[in-house]
């Protein structure tokens, strides 16, 4: 039997689709890091908290859009409150102290989520709420099989990456076109100069945390469809770490491309290299392995800033 070229394309497309979702999670990290130099360890629990809040609401009979709206509101409040009560009092402290604060925050959010809701595993079937068969009206998307291209691609993956991709585009637009976005880029480049031209540093931070809250909600819901709403969701977020290592912590385009590279890489690895590494299941760790190899070659990541210090 010759090489199955169609299958290869399926694998690559599948990888790209899941890569978009890695990218979205990674952007959450990058935004906070760019604007305040903090690696936000609580990103994963924010994701869990967001999707748990949403799921509990829908389980109690609140409609999809209402629940989405309320959950967004709650995540904005959580984000702004985190900035105001956790990060702001620690401004100008050692970065390690700030990082430890996010570790504490993660533990708190994990406990708080259990206290508020519960620690059960919740299933989340998006197609209960949104009719993704909408895609069916387009003849390309009938079931998971795409006759037009003769490929087999899960429909939900297409839907999820469309949502994630749209959010990424909206965010990119927001940061390029608005004054708030310009302020954020200014703050990420130079705090002191940003303040000197009159940019409200704390307001920018609050906006970044609020946006991160929204990203956590959206990516949480998309991931939850695959891995259910439970504490394993936090581990899903850990997949964003190799993405950041490859893309660089300071670059949004890096996060996007890093996500795609990891998505495709781990799928290709699983399918074509598994035998070399001793069987199936290497998808679980192959992303980290790729990141490690990448670090050897380019420690600052693909688009990260190379730190040059004047001596």
């Amino acid at each position: 039997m010759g090489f199955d070229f169609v299958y290869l394309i399926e694998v690559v497309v599948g990888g790209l689709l899941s890569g978009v979702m890695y990218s979205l999670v990674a952007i959450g990290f990058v935004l906070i890091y760019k604007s305040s130099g903090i690696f936000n360890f609580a990103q994963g629990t924010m994701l869990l908290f967001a999707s748990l809040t949403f799921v509990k609401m829908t389980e109690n009979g609140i409609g999809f859009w209402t629940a989405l709206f309320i959950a967004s509101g709650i995540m904005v409040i959580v984000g702004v409150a985190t900035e105001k009560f956790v990060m702001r009092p620690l401004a100008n402290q050692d970065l390690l102290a700030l990082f430890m604060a996010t570790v504490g925050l993660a533990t708190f959010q994990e406990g708080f989520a259990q206290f508020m809701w519960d620690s059960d595993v919740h299933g989340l079937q998006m197609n209960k709420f949104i009719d993704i068969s909408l895609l069916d009206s387009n003849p390309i998307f009938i079931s998971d099989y795409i006759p037009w291209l003769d490929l087999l691609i899960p429909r939900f993956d297409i839907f999820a990456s469309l949502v994630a991709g749209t959010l990424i585009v909206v965010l990119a637009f927001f940061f390029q076109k608005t004054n708030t976005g310009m302020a954020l880029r200014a703050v990420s480049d130079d705090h002191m100069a940003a303040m000197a031209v009159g940019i409200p540093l704390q307001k920018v931070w609050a906006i970044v945390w609020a946006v991160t809250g929204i990203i956590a909600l959206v990516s949480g819901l998309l991931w939850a469809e695959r891995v259910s709403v439970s504490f394993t969701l936090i581990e899903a977020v850990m997949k964003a770490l190799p993405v950041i290592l490859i893309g660089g912590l300071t670059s949004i385009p890096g996060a996007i491309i890093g996500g795609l590279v990891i998505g495709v890489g781990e799928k290709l690895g699983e399918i074509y290299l598994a035998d070399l590494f001793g069987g199936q299941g290497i998808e679980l760790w192959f992303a980290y392995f790729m990141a490690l190899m990448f670090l050897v070659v380019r420690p600052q990541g693909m688009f990260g800033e190379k730190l040059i210090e004047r001596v």
Partner: protein
Amino acid sequence: MSDILKVENVTLQFGGVKAITDISFNVKEGEVCAVIGPNGAGKSSMLNVINGVYLPQIGTVTYNGVTRKTINPRDAAIAGMARTFQNIALFQGMTVLENIMTGRNLFMKSTWLEQGLNIGRAREDERVNRLAVEKVIKFLQIESIRKTPVAKLPYGLQKRVELGRALVAEPKILLLDEPMAGMNLEEKADMSCFILEINKEQGITTVMIEHDMGVVMDISDHVVVLDYGKKIGDGTPSEVMANQDVIDAYLGVSH
């Protein structure tokens, strides 16, 4: 003319080290005031106290008739203070145009929603502020590098862009921290012309830290001399030149 800025008995300490000791001086509205002194004399610290970056332990700064111990740099910007930094503090990820545009952020009246959708007040904002930015770009003769990322520019031009960012905010007072450091003769001449023109044509009060004595004597109306955190001279350029303490500080004293 009245004093736009009064520094009174300011002392600034970092731990046990006194950066500034009991310094007072006034800046008249509309003048170019140079703050000079050997390395480590406390010049930049002084500027940072005025701008609100450092909080002095003792003393007050009166600006525009308001006396205070410190100000938040953002409030200073709102009150019409614009500044440049000793080690260029441009936004490295942005183009020249974008950098100068950030200097207009206090003039933006539209919300992010209007800007994102380019509706309502956003268009007017864009028009008015872009016009102001273009005026500054033309004045500083940097039209050709408008779209260049600042990180790619040579040092002298970066200094010029930073001046542009401060100038576009239509400040009452400009604080320039070594605007000519590291420049060659030609660049210095250009920069001197810009500073003089800003001062004479637009009437913007300028406080400038500078090392080049030739430049200082040429363009300033008033010179304040610091040495080891203390004020040792204050007056017109010719008065300061004749001051024995100043001569000693610069040339050393024979024992």
